[in-house]
């Protein structure tokens, strides 16, 4: 027993990372027709990484500098790349978010009846892909997982996405909307990552090493001279933008965001939950893990540009969300709006690196990543719940549904308020921290962003009003269209999300402590 304990503790990260693949293989071996067994097996197996993450959280020493639970294995020796894993407070928070949202999303997928086995297996592969990005301490391994997560998501959208809808692509040539959206999703992300890929190759060639801590140190000590026949500064600036664009597409930052509303709208509910909950965080994580440490000078120099893009995302995201008629698209644009705050915090921290303001802004940004993961996943799920019953997402088709579905209404209002940033719920804490940290550094941009917050309120209230309030749409009262209340399984899906939303809102110290110490040590 002691031996097993020791083994688990020594290989905790590998276990968390690869257990989902193992689970996927198990699921693929189950008989095809027993849908119930497939669902429950997948769900219970997905709880294992969560459990391991909780052990990890408990064993993690927040005050200790550097990476913990490091593991290193041979991978591609010829080009000096190793499977190097490790966590600090930043990656730990993201790992918790991933392993938490995956079982939640799987539970939300119990209504899938088409090719359940493959669906569930793809979801588990996706989990490994996302975790790999957060756990990697080797730049090549980071890229491997970064790309590989795209494949399951592509198939989830284009096979299990919404069957309705067409998009005109070229002079009357129409394609199914989910095909359009999935291809756009994968090509935008891959295309955006080309620069990242090239920059990674360049770093590897320069230093004959892909180990992240080593690269950070060597790359930063390279300040003068020439590289590839160009001044080092020029190369660094180009490489900086190559990294930024790859991550900005994923976050997504205006003007690289256009894949997101399409992908979200067409994805199955659980796909949207993971897409908004975790995949967008990969981009922000890239900024924090790679861009700021590798390019401190360039980040500070171009912080104003980043802040500008962030504010555009906040303002345009809010306006666009307000203008939508489709409930799911509204929530999708709200992600652009909320992730803008993450980037604003990062920009402020880049500009004022090392100061207290920077630290506050970073705390806000990371907490906002976690919070948005909870509330966006919740919102997409709630949209899915009502869509499944009404088969419409058009806000004008609802109206006054609160008396019909009081519990659903309550949950929807609660989650919306978290998204809006109501004090006492989690969104308030993180957005306040970002704004507080960014204000002295980027005053004008922050001021505009706060006006953007006003519109956040507007679109969220618009959503609530159209669905729950106003004159009751008699269509849903009786007969075959009678709207049914949210069921127990669906409440269980929401329960952990709502609990965390409330807990972080009231007592954020447990998670902020980990984030704060990590930020302090990463960017002192």
């Amino acid at each position, binding site marked *: 027993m002691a031996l097993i304990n020791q083994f688990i503790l020594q290989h905790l990260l590998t276990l968390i990372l690869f257990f989902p693949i193992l689970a996927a293989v198990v699921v693929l071996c189950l008989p095809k027709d027993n849908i119930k067994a497939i669902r429950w097996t997948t769900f219970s197996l997905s709880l294992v990484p969560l459990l391991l993450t909780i052990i990890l959280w408990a064993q993690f020493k927040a005050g200790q500098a550097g990476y913990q639970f490091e593991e290193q294995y*041979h*991978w*591609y*020796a*010829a*080009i000096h790349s190793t499977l190097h894993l490790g966590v600090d407070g930043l990656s730990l928070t993201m790992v918790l978010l991933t392993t938490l949202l995956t079982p939640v999303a799987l539970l939300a997928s119990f209504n899938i009846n088409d090719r359940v086995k493959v669906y569930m297996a793809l979801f588990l592969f996706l989990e490994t892909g996302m975790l790999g990005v957060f756990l990697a301490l080797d730049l*090549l391994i980071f*890229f*491997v*997982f970064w*790309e*590989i997560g795209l*494949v399951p998501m*592509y198939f989830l959208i*284009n*096979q299990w996405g919404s069957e309705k809808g067409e998009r005109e692509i070229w002079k009357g040539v129409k394609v*199914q909307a989910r*095909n359009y959206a999935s*291809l756009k999703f*994968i*090509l935008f992300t*891959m*295309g955006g990552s*080309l620069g990242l*890929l*090239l920059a990674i*190759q*360049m770093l*590897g*060639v320069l230093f004959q090493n892909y180990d992240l801590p080593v690269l950070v140190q060597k790359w930063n000590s390279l300040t003068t001279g020439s590289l*590839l026949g160009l001044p080092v500064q020029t190369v660094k600036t180009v490489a900086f933008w190559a990294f930024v664009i790859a991550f900005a597409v994923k976050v997504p930052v205006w003007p690289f965001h256009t894949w997101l509303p399409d992908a979200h709208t067409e994805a199955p509910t659980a796909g949207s939950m993971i897409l908004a909950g975790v995949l967008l965080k990969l981009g922000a994580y890239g900024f924090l893990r790679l861009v700021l440490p590798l390019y401190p000078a360039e980040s500070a120099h171009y912080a104003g540009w980043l802040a500008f893009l962030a504010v555009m995302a906040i303002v345009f995201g809010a306006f666009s969300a307000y203008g939508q008629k489709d409930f799911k698209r509204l929530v999708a644009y709200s992600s652009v709006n909320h992730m803008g705050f993450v980037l604003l915090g990062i920009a402020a921290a880049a500009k004022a690196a090392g100061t207290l303001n920077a630290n506050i802004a970073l705390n806000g940004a990371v907490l906002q990543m976690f919070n948005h993961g909870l509330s966006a996943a919740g919102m997409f799920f709630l949209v899915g719940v009502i869509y499944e019953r009404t088969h419409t997402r058009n806000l004008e088709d609802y109206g006054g549904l609160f008396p019909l579905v009081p519990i659903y209404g309550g949950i929807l209002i609660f989650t919306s308020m978290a998204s809006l940033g109501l004090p006492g719920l989690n969104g308030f804490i993180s957005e306040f921290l970002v704004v507080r940290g960014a204000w002295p550094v980027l005053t004008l941009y922050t001021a505009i962003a706060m006006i953007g917050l006003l519109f956040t309120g507007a679109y969220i209230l618009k959503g609530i009003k159209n669905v729950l309030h106003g004159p009751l749409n008699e269509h849903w009262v009786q007969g075959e269209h009678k709207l049914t209340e949210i069921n127990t399984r669906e409440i269980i899906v929401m329960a952990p999300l709502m609990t965390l939303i409330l807990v972080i809102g009231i007592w954020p110290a447990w998670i902020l402590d980990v984030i704060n110490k990590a930020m302090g040590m990463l960017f002192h």
Partner: protein
Amino acid sequence: MHFPFLSVIVFTPLVAALGILLYKPEQKKAIRITALSAAIFALALSVWVYFTYDKAVAGYQFVEKYNWMPMLGISLHFGVDGMSVPLVLLTGIVMVTGVMISWGIEDRPREFFAFLFILASGVFGVFASLDLFMLFFFYEIAVFPMYLLISIWGWIKTREYAAMKLTLYLFIGSVVSLIGALVIYWTSGQHTFDMLVLETVKFTPTFQKIWFLPVFLGFAVLGGIFPFHNWSPDGHVAAPTAVSMFHAGVLMKLGAFAALRVGIMLLPEGAKFWAPLIMGLALINIVYGAFIASVQSDFKYVIGFSSVSHMGLVMMGFATLKPEGLLGAGVQMFSHGVMTALFFATVGMVYDRAHTRQIPELGGLIKPLPLVAIGVIVGSLVSMGMPGFSGFVAEFPIFMGIWRTQWLVAVIAAISIIVTASYVLLVVRRVFFGKMPETLQGHITPINTLDKIALVLLMALMIGIGIFPALMVPWVQSGVQHILALLGGA
């Protein structure tokens, strides 16, 4: 004296071909079983050679030498190094899977398998030869049956045109190389075709610069280098399935490999001088091939042109003359071989059932042919260089090699990644997903067990190497060391 592994591998297919010809034409079952057993035997030996090859020692191993024509200095001289040993393995794999997939050929299977096996002998011979003359000898043996295989069993619409075009291109290419080789023989003053001796001869730089280009390009025609590539898509499309697999999977490697062995390794100074030109041509292959592939409406032409693009990466890796580039090129030869073998196998399966390869006329095939669809998806991911598959393991070091030579080329070549991704994803979706056209309803029969085994074997190789590069990289790396030494440690 150890067991003569390489001679047995090289001559097994030839002996089997003669044996098959002894059967009566109607003994189809016996013919097939003989073919499969011979193929499995050759594969088993090449697996043995692969895993017993000592990477730590490196150099040429399993060496055998028999006098053949001593007065001219020609001997039957076999040996493999880290570059060729994966290719011998690849040939064994393509041979076995090719036979499995051609199980159902009803039109003169006796002659078909006999020609296919003569071709296989030639291919094994080129990869194992350490004698320049023998290399040509086997090279021509590999090319000649191609003409018959395509013009007799090929796609009725273009087979005569394609077979003629392919043969003329390849013969002209090899004649040009042969002249170069003879000049090398005369100039060396050693009166030997032994490449191990020729490697050590210091030819003058001027000589090397003059003769490198004809020798390299003559062979590279078979590797599909621009602007001599356009026999290849026509040839691929016209050939019957197993021949396409051999053709794209192995034969194109033959060209690249011989260009490396004779061009770069015997004339290293010439290689250094002409590397920028080869790089430029390879860059056109990579980018132009990807664009042309993306506008094809025939499923098989898509794969044909994608091969042009991917073989460009091999040439590119060679042209960098850097350890990473050569390493990547070596792995890419294997990875691309397995990938196209898989692609052509699946295209063949689709065509046999749907009787069309026009992408707009296909659709929804994943339901009746799930494993074929998975095969094409895996192949597509390899072809777009997705990490976790063998294509990434190969392409990444090639790009690193380019970075060490000329970064601008890397930036331009990267365009092909996104173009490839877009067309392979579109093809997969149009052929395998969506609604099945009414004309196909009920015509799509499931594939048989042998087909399944072949597909699974090919997929497993690509995923295995993608996840564990150590399954192949150390072999190639040991071969690269030797080439670098010849290049003067560049």
